[in-house]
């Protein structure tokens, strides 16, 4: 796995290249015809087209949310191309048939596919612009009954499963961007862990936006049946363009009785330049339904990229004694804006949730934690503990904490704490006086600050995440 991150952390923004591949791009704009076109291109069943059209109808009636603590010019949804696929020469049967240009791209990105995937011991699905290109390790996973493939493929191969779960956690009209995604999503990952199976390896998806003027709207659906468990990782990059690009993904997780889903993200979309030009608008809806008793949904995210991040990976704790976790490090520098956090909705009895959020702001950036803890009247014995810490580097940035705590049950217990730290001259001088240089001092302080989150990441991810942060903040301290 470290190869992916090795590349992610390299400087300067290394993923800023564009791959010269003939793309099959849909005309810009959004209307029912475009949606029908996407559906036709993907040879979709009628129920899915209905799903899309229903979402589109709802979207038309909705308004872009104005409450996040972010500012950006009005998005022209008619100026976006909603479908951009590397033009397939024919249907691919093996990795050898993948466009060599594309393979070279992955090599540049350090995506461990093919043999390298086997060596790394990770199963990887790669979403390039909007289309899933290749999924490694499928065979090996199939032996234990795990389905891990692109969602387009799943729609054809496992229509009943997809139909059963798609849109059940994030309904088509859930919010503005989720509705948009539901109308136009082009690909994504489907993952199904059957009863009692502990997934033998980390599953991973790698996302990349390649074409200028295209948006990425992927859809991820993970279902863990009774007693199963899975750890899923995602990484994201995009080329440098001076225009802003929209990424509006939807991720749905469903954990049945005693199932356990761990979802880790290292998000390093292009953040724009030091003047704030360009970069990805990352407007993402991620939600897990802990449906069964004793089920567990755990989100871990390291958010370093994107011009704007608007993202609240959430847990609906419906099953009795189910557990929700959210561990987050969000770093903003230059003119980045992040409004991120989580929602923990406690419905079942004795449900528990933990929130650990670390926000680091540098440059002229603004970093907001926004979190909701809601205890429904039914959630007797529910517990939540939240900790939200902010670190400010320099005096031109902002750190904001907006925790919403709503309690409707007298037998619940909710605790929230927040504090601030800083890296300043005095901290660095103390280290220097012990012979430790600035760079090492910064990395140590940041690592210490983020420790509670990093230890939730798979180990290689954690080591590299530290480096990534060090790189992100280079030059902003001392």
């Amino acid at each position: 796995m470290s190869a992916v991150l090795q590349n992610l952390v390299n400087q300067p923004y290394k993923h800023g290249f564009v791959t010269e591949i003939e793309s099959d791009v849909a005309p810009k704009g959004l209307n029912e015809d475009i949606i029908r076109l996407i559906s036709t291109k993907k040879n979709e069943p009628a129920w899915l087209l209905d799903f899309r059209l229903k979402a589109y109808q709802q979207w038309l009636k909705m308004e872009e949310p104005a409450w996040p603590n972010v500012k950006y010019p009005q998005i022209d949804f008619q100026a976006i191309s909603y479908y951009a696929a590397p033009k397939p020469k024919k249907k691919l049967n093996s990795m050898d048939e993948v466009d060599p240009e594309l393979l070279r791209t992955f090599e540049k990105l350090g995506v461990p596919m093919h043999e390298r995937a086997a060596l790394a011991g990770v199963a990887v699905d790669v979403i390039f612009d909007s289309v899933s290109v290749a999924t490694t390790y499928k065979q090996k996973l199939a032996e234990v009954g795990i389905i891990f493939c692109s969602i387009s493929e799943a729609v054809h191969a496992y229509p009943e499963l997809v139909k059963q779960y798609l849109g059940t956690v994030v309904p088509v009209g859930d919010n503005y961007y989720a509705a948009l995604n539901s109308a136009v999503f082009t690909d994504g990952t489907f993952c199904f862990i059957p009863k009692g199976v502990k997934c033998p390896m980390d599953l991973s998806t790698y996302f990349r936006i390649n074409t200028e003027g295209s948006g990425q709207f992927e859809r991820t659906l993970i279902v863990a049946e009774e007693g199963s468990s899975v750890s899923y990782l995602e990484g994201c990059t995009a080329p440098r363009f001076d225009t802003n690009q929209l990424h509006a993904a939807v991720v749905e997780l469903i954990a049945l009785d005693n199932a356990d889903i761990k979802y880790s993200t290292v998000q390093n979309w292009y953040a724009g330049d030091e003047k704030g030009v360009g970069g990805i608008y990352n407007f993402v809806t991620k939600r897990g339904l802990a449906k069964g008793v004793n089920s567990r949904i755990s989100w871990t995210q390291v958010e370093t990229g994107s011009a704007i991040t608007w993202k609240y990976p959430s847990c609906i704790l419906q099953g009795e004694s189910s557990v929700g976790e959210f561990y987050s490090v969000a770093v903003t520098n230059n003119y980045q804006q992040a409004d991120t956090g989580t929602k923990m909705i406690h419905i079942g009895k004795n449900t528990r949730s933990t929130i650990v959020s670390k926000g680091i702001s540098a440059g002229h950036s603004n970093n907001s934690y926004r979190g909701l803890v809601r205890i429904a009247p039914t959630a007797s014995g529910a517990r939540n503990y939240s900790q939200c810490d902010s670190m400010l580097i320099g005096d031109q940035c902002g750190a904001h904490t907006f925790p919403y705590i709503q309690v409707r049950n007298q037998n619940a217990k909710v605790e929230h704490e927040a504090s601030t730290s800083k890296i300043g001259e005095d901290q660095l001088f103390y280290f220097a006086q012990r012979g430790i240089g600035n760079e090492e001092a910064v990395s140590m302080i940041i690592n210490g600050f983020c420790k509670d989150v990093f230890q939730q990441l798979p180990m290689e991810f954690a080591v590299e995440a530290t480096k990534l942060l060090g790189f992100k903040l280079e030059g902003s301290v001392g």
Partner: protein
Amino acid sequence: MIHQDSKTILEVSGLQAAVDGVEILKGVDLIVKSGEVHAIMGTNGSGKSTFAKVLAGHSAYQVTGGSVLFEGQNLFDLEPEERARAGVFLAFQYPIEIPGVSNSHFLRLAYNTLQSQRGKDELDPLEFEDFVREKMKLLEMNPNFLDRGVNEGFSGGEKKRNEILQMALLEPRLAILDETDSGLDIDALRIVTNGVNKLANKDNAIILVTHYQRMLNYIEPDYVHVMRGGRIVKTGGKELALDLETRGYDWLGVERRAPASA
């Protein structure tokens, strides 16, 4: 201990320094030789803490004149971390708290950085653990200090002990203890000073910066310097400290109208 043939470790001549354009040090002269213990005394604002920080290289202070040679080398050519690696150690008056960074990790990194600088072997975490535990006994410290964040939630006394522990690990040529006695109760003062005494030897030197004579009951200075208005205005033996204790600073009467800055 004063020896005629000792090597000069520190040579300060006419040192002037300012903070935010306000001059605080106005010509400090001082020679420190190996094996010696110097006490620099003075009231608040006399410039003694500024002197300590300037030697360590704090960026808030601008050197505006004079020179400092450390073992013959121009100290101002070195960055703060280079000075530390060369053997200049400052025990801080207010050690910084660094949440999340474990004390053992920090100590080991500092120790190994110096070891590699000196061309010696670095210690792995297990070896270091044994090594540091031994040093901690010197300061009667509880080993669980190692697992806590650097100075995080430490009491004043614990912070000061942690400073001297670092001195024990880093074995500096010149240790500057800035108001290390402040905020210590009598037991802690005894432990800390005892630690310092054990670390003092014929090859290193110590500068004690202090307001009160109390610490000098435990660490016997070879020289006592009185600072006032940014200069050393009087130098004597340990008896000078006792005079100051009984008579205060006013009898010195020098530069009474010095600017009230710093």
